[in-house]
């Protein structure tokens, strides 16, 4: 007996309520943009500059006492958060202390770190400092630029590749799905206020990759079916293609989610934000390849009259499809 997540031969109409799903996507994107400006992301030191210190102790974290101890040092804005169940070890209490960037373009002076450590040891003699990270304001500005550049470049490269392999309508559909995924991911980070640092940018790019992967598989089938069902309505061709690839889409998403969820639960708190972004991305990316990318393709339409020799050898929905296989 095989495990079947999707019934055999589905014939679901994915565009019956397209106004609803598409509307929901547009709403989610708008809401994300508004949240970004109204609430903002919880940027990490990679982007703002500053210092984070991880503390470990067997005693309970007393955020108030820590704050009290650090106040005389006059370090400006300090945020202290307790990290819960870091490794499921009962007597290990972990906290994350973030200090805003100090004057000057250097990262941080050894004296400042020593002063902070001494102050905290005054509160809790057993406290240790397993990691200290510091980014100078000069570098953080560059990191932001590189990050934005990376995301934009990735999208541009993909736009170009899909245009090369398919048609511009496919390309636009795929990129709309990507923009949707990234925007909505940023939205959820605004809502949950998970720390947004460089690794999250890496996660965003992975989401770009994953979402595309999904979109491309659907599009590949659409291209094939456009050649097979020459006179069928585009909406129906899309539905057939999505239904045919549905089983694969679900299988791959589930295996990826299985792997990511085990990493989320067991992989330690250091990369939890990163893994969360990817889990969210897989879910959103799977959704968007059907309800955003394909929906846009449906609205834009594809040139269907391929029977006349229009100089491309009669291959439907493709420019350079002869590259494959």
């Amino acid at each position, binding site marked *: 007996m095989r495990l079947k997540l999707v019934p055999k031969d589905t014939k679901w109409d994915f565009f019956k309520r397209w106004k609803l799903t598409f509307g929901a996507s547009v709403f989610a994107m708008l809401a994300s943009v508004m949240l970004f400006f109204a609430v903002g992301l919880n940027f990490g030191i990679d982007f703002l500059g500053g210092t984070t210190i991880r503390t470990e102790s067997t005693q309970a974290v007393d955020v108030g006492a820590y704050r009290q101890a650090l106040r005389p040092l006059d370090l400006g804005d300090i945020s202290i958060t307790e990290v819960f169940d870091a490794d499921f070890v009962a007597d290990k209490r972990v906290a994350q202390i973030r200090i805003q960037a100090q004057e000057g373009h250097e990262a941080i002076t050894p004296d400042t770190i020593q002063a902070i450590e001494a102050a905290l040891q005054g509160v809790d003699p057993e406290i240790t400092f397993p990691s*200290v990270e510091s980014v100078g304001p000069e570098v953080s500005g560059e990191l932001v630029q590189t990050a934005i550049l990376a995301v934009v470049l990735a999208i541009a490269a993909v736009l170009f590749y899909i245009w090369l392999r398919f048609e511009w309508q496919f390309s636009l559909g795929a990129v709309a799905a990507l923009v949707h995924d990234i925007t909505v991911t940023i939205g959820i980070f605004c809502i949950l206020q998970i720390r947004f640092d460089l690794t999250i940018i890496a996660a965003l790019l992975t989401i770009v990759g994953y979402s595309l992967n999904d979109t491309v598989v659907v599009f590949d089938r659409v291209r094939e079916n456009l050649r097979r069902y020459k006179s069928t309505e585009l909406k129906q061709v899309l539905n057939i293609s999505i239904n045919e690839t549905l089983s694969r889409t679900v299988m791959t998403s589930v295996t990826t989610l299985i792997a990511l969820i085990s990493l989320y639960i067991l992989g330690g708190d250091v990369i939890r934000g990163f893994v969360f972004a990817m889990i969210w991305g897989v879910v959103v990316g799977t959704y968007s390849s059907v309800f955003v990318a394909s929906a846009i393709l449906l609205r834009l339409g594809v040139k269907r009259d391929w029977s006349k020799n229009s100089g491309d050898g009669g291959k439907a929905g493709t420019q350079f499809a002869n590259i494959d296989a």
Partner: protein
Amino acid sequence: MLQIPFWKRLLIWGVVVLVLFMAMPNAFYPRVERHNDAVKLIEAEGETPERLADMSAWPGWLPSSLVNLGLDLRGGAYLLAEVKVEDVYADRMDGYWPEVRDALRAERETVGSIRRVDGPAGELHVKIANPEAMGRAMEVVSELSRPILSLTGTGSNDIDVSGQGDTLVITLSEAEKLATDDRTVRQSLEIVRRRVDEVGTREPSIQRQGEDRIVISVPGIGSADELKELIGTTAKLTFHGVVSRTADPDTAPGARNFVAPSMDEEGVYYILSQDTVVSGEELTDAQPSFDQNGRPAVSFRFNPTGARKFGDYTAENIGAPFAIVLDNEVISAPVIQDHIPGGSGIITGSFTVEDSTQLAVLLRAGALPAELTFLQERTIGPELGQDSIDAGKIATIVAFVAVLVFMWLSYGLFGIFANIALVINVGLIFGLLSIIGATLTLPGIAGIVLTVGMAVDANVLVFERIREELKTARGPSRAIELGYEKALSAILDANVTTFITAVILFALGSGPVRGFAITLGLGILTSVFTAIYVTRLIIVMWFERRRPKTIEV
């Protein structure tokens, strides 16, 4: 149908076995690491019984390259330093002064007497007595300039000369500045490397980044502060003539003199001549030692030119004090008792044994040509690294097993084929990581886990396609063949796009992000390889043996 030529099969299995063989040492990480360390030590310092025992822990004929563990897994310190390249301009101009002086003195009749005056840093200002002869002075000095031999600066000279009233201003030309910057950063890189190597930790990585930056990561070092102390000290050692001693740091030192504080006497300042007698660049050796009173000291030796200059100076200035200056602080200012000819000497001060050892290391490695400032730093304790390794291991194993079970439940026998390929796939990733000497970081582990999840995708695409083709009932062998054929374009398109993002991440990312990009990129390569070749070969071999009339995917 379903034929794969023998040579192709051999090639596929050959590649798999070879890469898995290269991956094998990682399964015995501590033993191989002990072996590697011992080999390195024996090469550097000779054999001891323990080292030989460690070396024999792993047979020499087996591959012994390991995946490097990144700082976040092993613990250590990371620094991003910026070299203050402008510091060097001033030194360069000081170096030009004797030449300029000699050239202008030769023209004394037209130019008149000359005098060096203080100008902004990096500019050489010379006052001449006859301003109307400025044209001639500029001409003479311009003749001293040398053409630049570099790709970008061809056709230009190394200095710019201009006249401002009665002052001749000499600066480095823009092209020469660029060339100097490049040299400075390379020198700094080399000196940082030497200093880190002197401490002898495992696999430090010191790389240039961009125009004027250096990335330093040293596993196993206690903290970024320790690392900063080691590499952040300029360690510029110079010997100067002493003009006088004072208690007021704001005294006007007079032309071509400067004030430097004493290192161990609080509130004591020396007025020193800016012209250096000898500098640390002319040292050939420095060792920690003790003076005649048994206090820690550093003994040193000059090269022949340094020895001659030092000998001449001491012979001419018997009875006068001279100052030993380290990074603009006076370590000591002894009085010259006698002519010192041999070119060796001893530096005493209030040192501890650690101080003298550190100073000797720094002097031996050479001074940094320019100051370093630290823009970014990271310290990761070894326990946190170990915790991350443990967590990563458990998460990977659980993810792996869960995906294996899920594939088996979903596709039965074909699922097991895919699972074999998946196991091979992870082995291949580790093999490739070892071969290219890549570094595994915590996000890198996440990349592997993600690959485990996504690697089955190519197989899923094929299997789903075979299922579809089976419906048209053209026989199992045809269905398998068509399944592979038709799924190929989707597999390629899907993976090329993901690979593009991995490449962009690698190119633009740094540190941990890069580690993620490497494993993700390699994972895509290996998973496409295993899906297209390995799983297919396994299925074909199974099919040839069983010749089933019907198959169930």
